[in-house]
């Protein structure tokens, strides 16, 4: 599903964000990517979405080889992946329903399909009753659930969440993580970048730890880190 082969990324200003990354995430996996800010975690996600291009190596996502992916192909790459962000990124002037439907409208789906899929997606995240509400009328947790519904409405094979619980209280954070696990159980590959130790530790899923542009740990059923590495990462 996702493969990084000897990937390095150097920004034009000289910053080396990633060095020799080798990584494979299989179909149906659930993986946490952890690391402090500046570790290279964000760059890794940007490479996945082809928001940035690799300097060296190859990234393969969903069958697309990203190094020679034409600019025009990028939208089609992204339609195959759902994205969830820390700040939700909902359109404030559209209702919950419209926000989710929007993701289908831009892919030129037929209205019949939109009318079928959007309620299903909203039901999945438990927001059927809030379909006509506007984002500002919802709690943070609900807004993030709308974002997840939108990410899932086109049935992507891969869901990428960048700090999905960063703006939420612990209770809502748990709701979101539980939801992401459910999504994963339905067969979607889920990649979550996060800071949140408690969640990572409780989930016991695969943990990929990044520091200073390198993968320092890749562990099935991992924890956020033992005391030593944790302090190293944060200091």
């Amino acid at each position, binding site marked *: 599903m996702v493969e990084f082969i000897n990937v390095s990324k150097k920004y034009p200003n000289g910053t080396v964000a990633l060095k020799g990354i080798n990584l494979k995430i299989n179909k149906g996996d659930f993986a946490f990517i952890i690391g402090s800010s500046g570790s290279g975690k964000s760059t890794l996600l940007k490479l996945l*979405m082809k928001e940035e291009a690799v300097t060296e190596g190859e990234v393969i996502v969903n069958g697309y080889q990203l190094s020679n992916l034409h*600019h*025009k192909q990028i*939208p*089609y*790459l*992204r*339609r195959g992946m759902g*994205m969830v962000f820390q700040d939700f*990124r909902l*359109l404030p002037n559209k209702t919950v329903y419209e926000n989710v439907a*929007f*993701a289908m*409208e*831009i*892919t*030129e789906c*037929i*209205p019949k399909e939109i009318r079928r899929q959007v309620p299903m997606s909203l039901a999945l995240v438990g927001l059927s009753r809030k379909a006509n509400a506007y984002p500002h009328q919802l709690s943070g947790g609900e807004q993030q659930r709308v974002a997840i519904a*939108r*990410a899932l409405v*086109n049935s992507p094979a891969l869901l990428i969440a960048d700090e999905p619980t960063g703006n939420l209280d612990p209770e809502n954070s748990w709701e979101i993580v539980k939801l992401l696990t459910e999504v994963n159980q339905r067969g979607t590959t889920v990649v979550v970048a996060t800071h949140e130790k408690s969640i990572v530790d409780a989930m016991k899923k695969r943990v990929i730890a990044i520091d200073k542009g390198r993968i320092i740990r890749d562990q099935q059923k991992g924890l956020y880190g033992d005391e030593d590495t944790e302090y190293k990462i944060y200091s």
Partner: protein
Amino acid sequence: MGMKIRSIKYILKTSILNASRNRLMSLASISIISAALILFGVFYLILVNLNYNISVLSQQPTMQVFCLPELTDEQVDAVQTEIAGNEYVESFTVVSKKEAFEQLKKYLADNKQEEGGSDILSGYDESFMNVSFIVKVDNPENSELAATEFLSFPGVENVEYSQKTIDVIQKVSNWVKIISIVLIGLLLVISLFIISNTIKLTVFARRKEINIMKYIGATDWFIRWPFIYEGIFIGIIGAIIAFVLVAYIYSLGEPIMSKDLAVFGGGFATVKFKAVCGTLALIYMGISTVIGASGSALSIRKHLHV
């Protein structure tokens, strides 16, 4: 990839919404486009009329050869013989002094009210008038050659023919062209600039939405089209306003032109608006679409990084 009807509906809705969202800038853009097109329309119609007169005049192969008033009958006969023998002359008629005098009297009587009504001819007889020959030249193109030859005959004072008028109109028309090209060019550049600024504001206002669209896989053109259409929409509204105003201006101006521009001898022939409105509308559509679209394109290139 073919654009689907639903997408077109979405795109049109968005572009009109955008234009109405920053009303002030849209209004400014529409006004400046209208102003440019009104100016263009006025100059264009002036040129159409001038060209029409040139074509009317060049259809007239006649010229009038005036003899000096003091010529004796024999001398007039000599001129007539020369004209009759000239290679360019197809036919000719003589206007005697008496006929010329009668025509002048009739012309003055017709225009009595406007001229102040004085009988300026009382006390005069036809002796001060010129004998003249109305000559039909075989081909209008030969008018100038023929006129030069007639002028060389002894006793010929003057030769009047349409080419002279045509030359004057041509000169005026050239100046109108130069002035209008400079002015309209300037205004169109300004319109382009203002439209692109309007679109820039929309891009700015919608940058969050654009960003989201990119993440959920909208193609570049799906994102761009609403901005292009917004530009075209502004352009076309400007064109419609300009068209209506120009039609109104022309309906007022046409009678004035046909009446007061009689300076060109035989009167000024005017073109009816009905005859040119189709072409004008097409030109307006073309210019406004191109300016609107390129104004947005300019802005998109600079500010919409998709």
